[in-house]
């Protein structure tokens, strides 16, 4: 296997993690005080890792581009976090969570990693409750659960529609405790510009203070990248405006393999695009699919009338509605996994049944849930023979208690009341399963460089299940990385402080300065956003929900040309030595212009459809994804050798010893 050794421990699946923890080397508490670790990114994975590493005794430096660690984009996760607690007594177990995640990922993730994730999931909930995370509770004081797509149990813990916020504030609080103790030095409004390798090992970073523009050198014995995903390569996505791939891409250019870049999640329930001015897309939590029913008009003339504003959705009779998910997937109905729901929406809209003036939207309707809850509430409140208006009023109160903030957000953006008329939704880029290749220890192919959370490729295969991102981020940060990294650092106890005046730091800093100067010296024709939007259009049209070989080949060529144009003609105002948001954006877009090309190349080589990667050439007669286990049961890990289109492919074969590979069916 050579360089792509996944280092999966031997032994039975359920014992691997325990065995591994017993086998790896530890660093004694006195020595930990002499070891420095850099953590880039302070979301769930980075924040949790930083706090835990500092508690263990390491000296930690954290970096985030935001003005506070609390603002990392994990905060925007709405619906919940999965854990195999089986509090509902509905037959859940570590094995079931493991199984659902592997199946949900369309059999493109590692068994051992996913089992470990399931194994530590329960601990996450215990930990967060101990930290004061205010999860939703039942009247008896116990924790409440709800259900998410792709599973048949209720294992999702939540804090209204702001679960990510509450979990992130928990990790932020744990960080704050360590900042207060002096064990974490927090660098905010700082961006990692490059990774520094000394003798082949990650030994530090070059960072830019975004306020002063000053370039800084920071050294450490290991560097953890927890910098999130690269969804913004599409320009329009549910990611934050600042979310970017720079740290991961800089590491990739220094030798870290980039895995499965084409595995991208298009989330089915987002607010549709309204116009060209649009800067980002807003997610409506998957949890809404617990109670909302998705439909489009059954008759073409109704769809046309709706688009022209002549008909309202509430005027369409029940029998004239096509609840297409319930029709196609009776077993899972509206709660099919995200990739399946997204493709089904696209299929209906492409066939001409889309609503909204753009024709790119479907309805998410709460009318029947409002009635159902209203009747239930009337019963428990002792109201006999309630009239329709009372039922609806009571039902709306229940819905408001469950999803109030989401409904409010929808109303503010779309200017329609979703209690009275169905929401309009359409798929949007949301999460990236691909990322830096890591082994079982979360180490990249660069010794001493680790990747955690969305930044790595590890646990979700070709499609992530809802409420699993928060689980993975915190699992990596709290419970996996702080221990596996010790094995590597145990060899560094005599190394001493890493100097920053070495030739390696000189060279890395020079490269960073040269690159910024080059960005500033473009001929100044088009703005950074102009290029970002152009890239986004190529990505969405040719690397989006459905891809084909011809389109992907075109995309590779077009992105390569756009990148050349960018470097010659981009216009960046201001100076390097001051606060300069245009320069920040330019650096990020420059890397997206490389990643986009690799993304298309990866999608082109994967001649199968699986999870979020749907190749039009590979589908069943019913339009379902056609996976090819014979030829593509591997992780595609790309080595940087210059131009992204020349990247070298390394394959990590996926071995399934505990799960039988099956065609994924939610029918």
């Amino acid at each position, binding site marked *: 296997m050579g360089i792509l050794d996944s280092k999966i421990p031997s032994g039975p699946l359920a014992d691997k993690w325990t065995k591994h923890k017993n086998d790896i080397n530890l660093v004694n508490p006195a020595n930990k005080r002499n070891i420095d670790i850099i953590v880039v990114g302070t979301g769930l994975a980075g924040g949790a890792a930083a706090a835990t590493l500092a508690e263990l005794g390491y000296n930690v430096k954290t970096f985030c581009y935001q003005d506070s660690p609390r603002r990392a984009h994990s905060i925007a996760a709405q619906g919940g976090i999965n854990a195999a607690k089986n509090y509902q007594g509905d037959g859940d177990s570590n094995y079931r969570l493991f199984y659902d995640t592997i199946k949900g990922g369309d059999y493109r993730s590692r068994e051992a990693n996913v089992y470990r994730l399931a194994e530590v999931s329960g601990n996450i909930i215990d930990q967060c409750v101990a930290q004061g995370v205010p*999860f939703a509770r039942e009247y008896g004081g116990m924790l409440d659960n709800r259900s998410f797509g792709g599973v048949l149990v209720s294992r999702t813990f939540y804090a209204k529609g702001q679960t990510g916020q509450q979990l992130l504030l928990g990790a932020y609080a744990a960080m704050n*405790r360590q900042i207060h103790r002096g064990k974490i030095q927090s660098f905010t409004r700082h961006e990692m510009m490059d990774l520094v390798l000394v003798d082949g090992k990650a030994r530090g970073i070059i960072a830019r203070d975004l306020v002063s523009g000053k370039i800084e050198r920071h050294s450490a014995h290991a560097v953890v990248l927890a910098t999130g995903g690269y969804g913004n390569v599409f320009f329009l996505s549910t990611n934050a*405006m600042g979310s970017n791939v720079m740290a991961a891409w800089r590491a990739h250019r220094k030798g870290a393999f980039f895995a499965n870049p084409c595995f991208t999640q298009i989330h089915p329930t987002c607010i549709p695009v309204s116009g060209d001015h649009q800067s980002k897309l807003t997610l409506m939590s998957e949890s809404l699919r617990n109670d909302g029913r998705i439909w489009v008009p059954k008759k073409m003339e109704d769809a046309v009338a709706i688009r022209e504003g002549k008909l309202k959705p509430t005027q369409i009779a029940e029998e004239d509605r096509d609840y297409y998910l319930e029709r196609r997937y009776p077993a899972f109905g509206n709660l099919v996994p995200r990739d399946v729901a997204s493709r089904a929406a696209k299929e209906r809209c492409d066939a001409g049944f889309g609503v909204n003036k753009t024709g790119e939207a479907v309805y998410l309707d709460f009318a029947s849930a409002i009635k159902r809850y209203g009747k239930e509430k009337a019963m428990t409140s002792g109201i006999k023979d309630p009239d329709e208006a009372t039922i609806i009023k009571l039902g709306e109160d229940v819905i408001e208690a469950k999803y109030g903030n989401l409904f409010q957000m929808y109303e503010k953006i779309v200017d329609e009341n979703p209690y009275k008329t169905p929401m309009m939704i359409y798929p949007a880029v949301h999460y990236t399963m691909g990322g830096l290749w890591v082994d079982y220890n979360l180490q990249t192919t660069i010794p001493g460089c680790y990747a955690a959370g969305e930044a790595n490729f590890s646990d979700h295969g070709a499609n992530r299940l809802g409420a699993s991102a928060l689980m993975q981020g915190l699992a990596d940060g709290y419970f996996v990385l702080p221990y596996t990294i010790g094995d590597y650092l145990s060899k560094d106890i005599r190394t001493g402080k890493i100097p920053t005046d070495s030739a390696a730091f000189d060279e890395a800093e020079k490269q960073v300065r040269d690159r910024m100067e080059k960005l500033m010296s473009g001929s100044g024709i088009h703005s950074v956003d102009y290029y970002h939007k152009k890239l986004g259009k190529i990505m969405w049209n040719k690397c989006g929900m459905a891809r084909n070989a011809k389109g992907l080949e075109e995309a590779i060529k077009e992105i390569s040309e756009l990148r050349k144009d960018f470097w010659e003609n981009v216009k960046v105002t201001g100076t390097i030595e001051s*606060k300069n948001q245009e320069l920040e954006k330019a650096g990020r877009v420059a890397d997206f212009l490389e990643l986009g090309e690799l993304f298309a190349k990866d999608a082109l080589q994967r001649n199968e459809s699986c999870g979020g990667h749907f190749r039009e050439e590979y589908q069943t007669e019913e339009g379902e994804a056609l996976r090819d286990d014979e030829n593509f049961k591997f992780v595609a890990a790309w080595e940087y050798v210059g131009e992204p289109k020349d990247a070298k492919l390394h394959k990590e074969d996926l071995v399934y010893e505990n799960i039988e590979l099956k065609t994924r069916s939610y029918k």
Partner: protein
Amino acid sequence: MKLYLKIWRQKDASSPGKIVDYTLDGVEGDMSFLEMLDILNEELVSKGEEPVEFDHDCREGICGTCSLQINGEPHGPDRLVTTCQLHMRKFNDGDTIVIEPFRANAFPVIKDLIVDRSAFDRIQQAGGYISVNTSGNTVDANCIPINKHDADEAMDAATCIGCGACVAACKNASAMLFTSAKVSQFALLPQGRIEAVERVQNMVRQMDLEGFGNCTNTGACEVECPKGISLTNIARMNREYLAATLKG
């Protein structure tokens, strides 16, 4: 619609700032306030001028990064929204809009409309946590039953996004609503009671050190808070503080 913008421009923390006038045409009601500024910036960049810098990130009202004092109100005229969720349909053709940074001594201007809110982080660092290690070796989550009403109230307090609108709205630039939201969240939970005495004292001490003013119960903070954090949290913090002081 056509708008007349009066925007605070300031090169950096040490330079003086001033209001600069801009006229912007072609603004649509479906645009968010920040998308309107994006268009202005695109125009400025095309003219080779430096764009107006403002803080923003998630653009869905949860990260707390965006700020802006719009016509004298933090996050503008709409209620229960952040600036990024404020839409231009709230304005009319021909309107003049004054856009300034959040104003407070404890929030120094960094550039244009961007202010430094790190004082909030330092208040949290002083005690906004439960001192439990993240080892995972705690009790099972359901071994700590919590009354649903208390849990819901703790959640309501915990939804504070730390944007600083409360400070910007307050004539005294007080940070009581922000600080009390965190104190309340933990005061309402059994896990948080253990350190309640030290927490409220340490956080209030840090709040005072940062130069925030005092609360005079005017209630502007509650009105302007995009997350609807209630003034009762301040009352709770005062009770907690008094009790802590009496305990010594």
